Structures are given as C-alpha cells and as structure tokens.
C-alpha cells in the first residue's frame, strides 16, 4: 500500500478532539532492605491498573532516587528490579497499601522502597554419562505453606543451561525450593527430573535459599523420563457410566506437596472413560466427584443445598514412567454423618442452633475430589446430618453466632478435632462442642526503642511440631497488629505456644514446619488456658 504523507504539526484545539490528559508525578528512593543503603541503577516499571494507562520505565540515580513525571492520572503498581535483589512489586493490594493513586498537581513521594536481597542456586545438568547438557530448561519451584500441611509449589522463572550444562537461578526470594530440569519443549511427553536426579516427585529434595547467598553445586543428572498416564472408567453406584463426574489425581507425597505443574483432571466421555496424561511418576489418589456439585458450589459459594448432587470415590494408584495405568473406579453416594452441637456442654437449640453450620473437611486441602468439604446447617433441635461423606475427615464449624467459639469435635468417642476420622460407613453420635469461654490472646508488638509496630505480622504456633503438620490446625494462627501495635486472637485451644514477629514477605511460608522450627529460638513462649486471656508482648529484634 502506498501511504501518502501528510504532516501536520500544530497545537490541538483540545475540545475538538479529546479531553486533556491530566498528569502527576511520582518520586521515591530504592534502598536495600538489609543495609538501608541506596540502590543505584535499579530498573523501575510503572504499570497502570487499567489498560489505557501506558507503562512507564525509569532508572534510579546514584542516590537510589527516581522521578517519574507526566504520569497520566490513575492507579499504578511499581515493579523494581536490580541484579542481586528479588524483583518486587509495590502497590499491590496484598502488600498492605493498595495501588498508588497518581493525582494531578502535587508530586507524590513514595518514600523508601526496600528491596530484599535475592538468593541464587547454581549447578549443572548432566546426562547419564556425566556429560553436560545444553539448553535444558531448569526451573525452581518455591515451596509455599499458606496454612499448615498445605505445602504446594509455585513455579518461578526458568532458565536454560549453557553449553557447559551450567545454570544459575537468581533473584530468588529466600525460602525452600525444588529444582527441576527438563529436555525439550513444553508439551513434550517428558517429565521433569528433580534434584538430586529423580523422576519420582516423592524423592525430590528441597534446597534452602537464603537472602544474598548462593547455593552452589546443585547437580542434576537428567534421566530419560517419559510422563505416565492414568486411564480408566468411572461408574456410578448403579453400574452405568458416570458421565457427570470430574476425575482428579492427587499427589500422595507424604508431606502433601504436589510437584505436578499442571492440573491433573479430566472429564469422562459418554462411556465413562477418561485419561489423564502428563503425570510425573509417583503415588497418587484418583478422586472422583460430581461436576454438578462443583458447579453448584461455584454458584452459591457454599455447600448448602448440594446434598445428593452426585457421587464420590477415591482410590490409590501408582504411576510409572512411560506407562498408562488402567483403573476402574466405582463411585457411590458416600455416607451420612449425624451428630449434635453443644454450647458450653448444653445442647444447642432454636435460633442459636440454626445460626451454626457444621463442616467435615478432608486433609487433602489442595485439590478436588472427596477432599471437598461436606457442610450442613444445624437444625433447631441441635442436630445435623452431613451427606456424601467418604474417607478421612476432621470436623469444623463454618458459621457461628457471636461470642461462640469452636472448641472440639468427638466422633465414636475419639477426638476428631485435630486428628482425621475415617468415614467408611454411616456415622451417628458425632459431637461438636462450642464454647463461650475460650482461651484468648492479647498482645502487642514493639520495636527495640519501644515504639508500637503497625501492620506487624505475628505467628502464634504450638510448641509441638506435630500440631503444625495438621491440616486446618487450630494450634497455628496468624495476626496483624493495628496502629497501636496491638493484636488479638479470640479463641485458641488451651496449651503451650510460641509467638513471633515475622517478616510479611515470608507470608507464603510461615506455616512451613522448617520455617516454624527456625522461629523457635527467637519466639516468645506462653501458655493459653481456657476461659482466660493471656497477654504477651513481642519486641522486634534488629
């Protein structure tokens, strides 16, 4: 196409074309979180929350300062990166302050933006004969624990090996990582090999990465490792194809961490057949649940009214490299769990009772399948019926009247609060005990000079390691301090605890048992007793 040139360069009569673009200014300084020293030559990228705000880039000067002028008004986040540090975004809602609001006129000073020093993992990828492998994709998987026993991995950037087989994974947030190496393009039927050289995710070892330090010598011997698959049929309790099912694979790694990078799920076809491909070798559970149930839950946000929506099943399977495991899964309606709710030892009744909702959770908190919670409203006579329950469960309440707190659950005469109860038949006589006189914690956090710390993150955890390994543990809590440095836990089981002030940046691993273990020496011990308030005071250590 021939484009004819017409050059008009003149002032725009603004009313005629578009509204004036209003702009503001953003300034600030980038410093190292550990030393407070200014970080020069750091890259900044200002990203608008709305697509019509164009991104801006800038660099810090020798004093670590930056100035972004003529920024179109609107909301922004700022991403700062610098070699040796963890790339960090500021202005994200979950980090406290919401996005930066750029307003016309006066410059906005963001103050000091602190960058954490990144950790590095270096090593080599070798073939079976010990020769280097080039252009292998090496990926670090960050181990996160948002809640106890809910370890899962988050992928971070991947890097290719060079012609010496060397890799360097940098800018890593301190924490624990798995490292995998895989040949070929994504979608190739090859499972990653995990450090120290295993195709089985259960044998993968985590590497501890510390701020500003290099974990070197991570050598991975790449083994030919085709993915396995699971195929089979799902039938319902009448023996016909269960076409309304959703099939999922759940990793049975003992620490509950799933190292599969993709969701291992499938929907059976009209004959009830399904196939799940790209499965790393290892032990799994095949979990079957109802798609209608899932959709209903998705629409309402609760399990109310989902009784009788489909059938469930759960069977174990071992997946081998390059092989397709054939399974036949028979689903059933699950079992009924009947029980009663007590408040301070008395049977709940009337409006108080109907304000309560009881739930039975599965320890497999990461996935679909029978792990989905069954829930039920409590009737005016204090009784409840949970339906469609199968497998290991522990009991909780999802809804409570004011001033009433969960105390414990008993099933078949055993404590089913902090230990799973296996539901293999209909169950009666489950007792849910609530209390109006819980153990209560009040505390304050102060810095070394005695000033209250605002928005401080506090982790309160049992002195017993076993309590950290329990999904949904009641003996692990987090809190955030207010402007006066005060925090509060309304209800906690009686017992011995530790409390520590922790960096907010570590929030995705506070519940990691290794992390909690590392807090022991600096944590403050205390004892919580029923019907009393324990006061603790924490001092930040610099």
């Amino acid at each position, binding site marked *: 196409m*021939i484009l004819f040139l017409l050059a008009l360069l003149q002032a725009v009569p603004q009313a005629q*074309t578009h509204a004036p673009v209003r702009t503001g200014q953003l300034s600030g300084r980038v410093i190292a979180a550990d030393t407070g020293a200014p970080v020069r030559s750091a890259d900044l990228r200002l990203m608008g929350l709305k697509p019509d705000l164009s991104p801006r880039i800038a660099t810090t000067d020798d004093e670590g300062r930056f100035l972004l002028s003529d920024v179109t008004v609107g909301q922004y986040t700022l991403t700062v990166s610098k070699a040796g540090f963890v790339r960090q975004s500021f202005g994200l809602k*979950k980090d406290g302050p919401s996005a930066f609001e750029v307003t016309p006129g006066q410059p906005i000073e963001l103050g000091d933006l602190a960058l954490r020093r990144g950790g590095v993992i270096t090593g080599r990828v070798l073939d079976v004969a010990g020769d280097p492998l080039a252009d292998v994709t090496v990926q670090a998987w960050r181990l996160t624990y948002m809640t106890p026993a809910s370890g899962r991995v988050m992928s971070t950037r*991947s890097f290719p090996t060079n012609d010496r087989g060397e890799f360097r994974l*940098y800018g890593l947030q301190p924490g624990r990582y798995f490292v995998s190496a895989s040949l070929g393009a994504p979608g190739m039927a090859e499972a990653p090999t995990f450090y120290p050289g295993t195709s089985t995710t259960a044998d993968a070892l985590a590497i501890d990465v510390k701020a500003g330090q290099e974990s070197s010598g991570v050598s991975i011997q790449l083994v*030919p490792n085709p993915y396995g698959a699971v195929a089979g049929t799902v039938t319902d309790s009448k023996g016909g194809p269960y076409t309304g099912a959703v099939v999922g694979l759940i990793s049975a790694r003992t620490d509950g961490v799933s190292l599969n990078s993709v969701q291992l799920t499938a929907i059976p076809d009209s004959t009830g057949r399904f196939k799940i491909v790209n499965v790393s070798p290892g032990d799994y559970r095949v979990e079957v649940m109802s798609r209608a149930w899932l959709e209903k839950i998705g629409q309402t946000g609760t399990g109310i009214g989902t009784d009788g929506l489909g059938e469930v099943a759960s069977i174990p399977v071992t997946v081998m490299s390059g092989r397709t495991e054939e399974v036949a899964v028979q689903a059933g309606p699950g079992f009924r769990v009947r029980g009663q709710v007590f408040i301070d030892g008395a049977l709940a009744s009337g409006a108080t009772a109907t304000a309560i909702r009881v739930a039975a959770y599965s320890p497999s908190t990461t996935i679909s399948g029978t792990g989905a919670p069954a829930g039920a409203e409590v009737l005016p006579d204090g009784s409840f019926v949970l339906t469609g329950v199968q497998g290991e469960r522990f009991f909780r309440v999802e809804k409570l009247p004011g001033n009433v707190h969960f105390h414990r659950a008993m099933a078949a005469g055993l404590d089913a609060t902090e230990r799973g109860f296996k539901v293999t038949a209909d169950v009666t006589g489950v007792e849910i005990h609530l209390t109006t006189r819980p153990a209560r914690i009040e505390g304050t956090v102060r810095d070394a000079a005695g000033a209250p710390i605002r928005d401080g993150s506090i982790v309160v955890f049992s002195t017993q390691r076993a309590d950290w390994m329990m999904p949904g543990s009641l003996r692990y809590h987090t809190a955030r301090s207010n402007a006066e440095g005060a925090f509060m836990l309304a209800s906690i089981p009686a017992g011995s605890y530790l409390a520590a002030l922790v960096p907010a940046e570590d929030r995705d691993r506070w519940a990691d048992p290794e992390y909690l273990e590392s807090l022991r020496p600096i944590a403050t011990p205390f004892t919580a007793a029923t019907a009393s308030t324990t006061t603790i005071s924490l001092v930040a250590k610099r």
Partner: protein
Amino acid sequence: MAHINRRRRSIARSSYPTYPTYPTYPTYLTYLTYLIFLLSPVSAQEPNSPALISGRVVAAETGQPLRGATVQLAGGSSQTPPVFTDLDGRFVLPERRIGRYALHVSKPGYVPSVFGRLADSIDYFEVLAGQRIDRGTIRLQVATVISGRVQDQIGEPVADASVTAWRIEYPQPGVRMWRQLKDTSTNDLGEFRLHGLVPGRYHVVASRPALPPESFARTPDSPVFVAATMGQSAGLPNLSEPIAVDTIRGGETSGTAITLAHTRFARVSGSVIDSTGRPVSDTSVTLSPAHSDGLPGRRGAQVYLRTGAFTFSSVPVGEYRLTTAARLMTKAGLLAESASLAISLNEDLNGLILKTETEAPQTRVGAIGHVFLDGAPAPTTRIQEMLWSRDENFIASESPDVLSFPGGASTTRADGLFGIDGGEGWVVLRYAGSPVFALKSVTAGGVDVTDGFDMKRAASPFEVHLTSRVSTISGVVKDADGGAAAACDVVVFADDPASWKLPFSRRVVLVRADEKGEFQVTGLPAGQYLAAAPADLDRAMWADPNRLERWRAIATAVSIADGEKKTIALKRK
C-alpha cells in the same frame, strides 16, 4: 511496507513468580470452580503404531561418533521427547504422529544440525505410521562460543539483558541481509554465553530487559522499545558500530564487554482526524523507526485507538515515523485514507495531529506486459516476480524455517499477456517455467530492465523475451577419493564480479548434485563462468561476493554461448 520482514521480538521467556492468596476454605471452593473451566473431555483414542527414525551422529571433522547427542524432530506436530545417541552415536526415535519433519540434533560444543539453516537447506522428510526411516550419518561441526558481560554506565551488571548474535547473510546473489542467529539473556552477574555458533563474523547486540510479558497482554500500547547501545558509544544503536566478533573454529571468544548507555525516553501523543476533520476511532497508529537499520532497540509500537487519541510512552529519543489509516464513509462509499508523519523525538511531543487523506487512485500497484518466445507471443508461461527493497539492512525473519522474498508468480494468458501485482520498490522479473526455454531479456518502454526496475518509475509496456536457445552446463562432482559427491552443492558464477551484486542475478547460480554427483545448470546468459563445488557450503552465505572471490581458487573456468551445451568435471573441495 510489506517488503520489510521486521523481526518479531520473542517476549522474554521468563515467567515471573506469582504470589498466591491465602487459601481459606471459601477461596478453596472458588478454586474448585476454577478447575471446572480447565477441564475438557479428552479423547481416549490410542495413536497409530510409531514410525522408527534412526541414524548416527558423528563429529564432522573427525568422523568420531558423538555420544549423548540430543535428537528430536522439528516441524509437524511431534510430541515425542528427545532421545540420546548411544556410545556409537546411534539413535532410534519413535514418532506416532505422521507429518513432515526435520531432525534436530544437538550436542554441547557442536553446531546444532539446523542452526541458521534456511528453509531450502533443511532436509525435511515424510513420516508415516509404522515406517522405518534411516537418516544415515549426521555430521556436526565444532561450534564456537561468544561470552561476555553486559554492564551499565557505572559498571554494574545488567541482569536479564537480551543479547543477540547477528550476521550478514547472502542467501541470493545481490541480496544482503541481517539475520539474528542466536539470542540469550544475561544472568544476575551480567554474564552471557552465546553458544553453538557456526564459526564466522558476528555482531553482538545487547539491550535492556524488556517489560514483563504480562504487560503485553494487558496493554495494547506497551512500549516495545528497549534502549540499546553497543561498545562504549552512547545513544541509539548504529549499525556502523556493532561489536563484531570473528570467532575462530571451535574456540571461545570471551571477555566481550558491552556497556548499555543511558537512553532518554519521551512520550508521543496526539490524535487522528480524517479529511473531514472528524476524530478517527477503531484504527491503530504505528510508530516505526525512520531508518530501517532494524537491529533490536529500533522496533515499532502500535496503539489501538478508541477515542481518536493515541499515546506512546517511554519511547527512546530518535527519528520516527507515525502512520495510520482510516476508512471514511461517504455518499460514494467507503474511502480508504491514510496519514504518515515524520517526527524527531528529543523531548515529549504532545498534541500531534495526524490528518488522514484519500490515497491517490492513480498510483500504479502492478504492471501488465507481454511474453515473447523467440520473438512471437508466448502462451501459458510462468513469470516469477521478485520484490526487493535494495535495503542494505534488510532484516530477515527470525525463523530459520522461513525465508521468503515477497513477490509472486503469474501465468500468461494464451495471447502472452501477463499481470503482476504489488510493486513498490525494486522489481526483478524472472522466468519460472520449463527449462526448455530461458529468459533472454526484460524491457520496459524499450529500455532493458532485465536486472530489475523501479515499478513506480519504469515506462510501459513491459516485454519479457524468452529464448529456446538454452545453454546447458552439466557435469559430475567427485570427492577427493574419486567417489561421487552425492547431493553436493555446485556454484556456477560469472567470471566478471560486476554481476555478483545484482539482485537475483542470472549469472550466479546454486544447484545441488543428485545422488550420483550429477548436476545441470540451464539458461545461463552467454559468457565466461566459473564452476565450483565447495565442501560445507552454507546456503545462507553462499552468494557473499567475498566467498565467490575465494572460490575462484578452486573453480573450473567454462565459457558458454546461447544454445550451447557443455560438460565439466568438478572436485568437491
């Protein structure tokens, strides 16, 4: 500007860490719902019995088997993971999906088998179910490495900088183009290693890290510019000053230091109005560098208009051109309008007005001519049209699979009339029919334009003259040991270097010998020629005038007249 295949930048391969939210039980339910959308019924169909592709990988120089080389299929829809060669360099690769594939063989320290190959020199083969395919011996050449460091002006390492290796290629006579052959990124120490390179002369270009990929998806007007400079120079990249690295065979060129200059960025904003003065929406404005030196750092950006206003932020200062197009609704129907504006960006330019105007209707976008065979109108003949920018800095497409020259073929009507489309810039017409005839000349308004013409300036009518007096040079190529040099490349080129630089010159020809080493070149214009069979000819570089000059030493001289047939014997050297 269809003739510039500007390279599309591969968005940084990295996926940045994402941070999860707390999985409370209610969000856990949301998560389950999310799962539903990821699900789709799968086909449980079992694939065919696999084809088995085998071969042996050796070092080209020594013939020694290469153990642990990675072998996989390129092209098609293969999902087969790579296999490794055994101690004897042998491999067997099962493939279940039928298709057309090439073997991709790599081994650290060697040049990957399809490195820098152009489409016509990659050996594709058909794979059918259950077949056994022996691909014979695959020879890998020892590679070279360029390593170094990228730093900023205060000497601090620049992490995640893009580092690319470029070379100038000559895939056709008179066609000189830049091509990027390898890219990598710096690590947190600013270090890079460009490995697996064919030995040769490279230009290394570094640029600042691009915006994170998510910004591309989110904002249509993200600046895709990155600032880049090479060496110690400041300002924007300049082709006259890239770091040129002459790599030696099998060695490593280390210590290449690249300092990124501080580049100023500015904003460009304005609005688009049509010839009636109304704001134009639902179109896009393209900002492209004024000069097509095309190296990274000089890419364009596009803004989609909703309100008639556009903004480009963070544009490195320099010379640019803004272009846009509009469709104007009139009583007479839709009118195409366009605008183009050259800008010199030193500081923010706001309030620009791009006013679109109707395109001139009489612009010639094609030509009509006649084809004559031995002076008489020629029926049904194929004429190949090549468009060439004659731009010294033409940037080739990034993919080694694709090297297409814009243009097209047309077939004459029974009365010898033909039409050709397009035609902005330099056009070369070639005969593409049966070798029984050959091109004699092309004239425009009586002027000889056989070597090419400017479509906008050339006079009419066009005449293409073919001759049945076709010259033929044929022969056989032998190896040093006297055996047939199967599938050997043969170059036949004019003794006079003046014709080497003509785009798509008829006097510089590359053919491939058959399995018996036999070759044939037809239709050369009468004259003095040289014929050579260089070993390890690189099809991306073969038409380099310097190489042709070097091959004089190993070439056999041959002269040919119209209609003459000659036979020569060549040795692969």
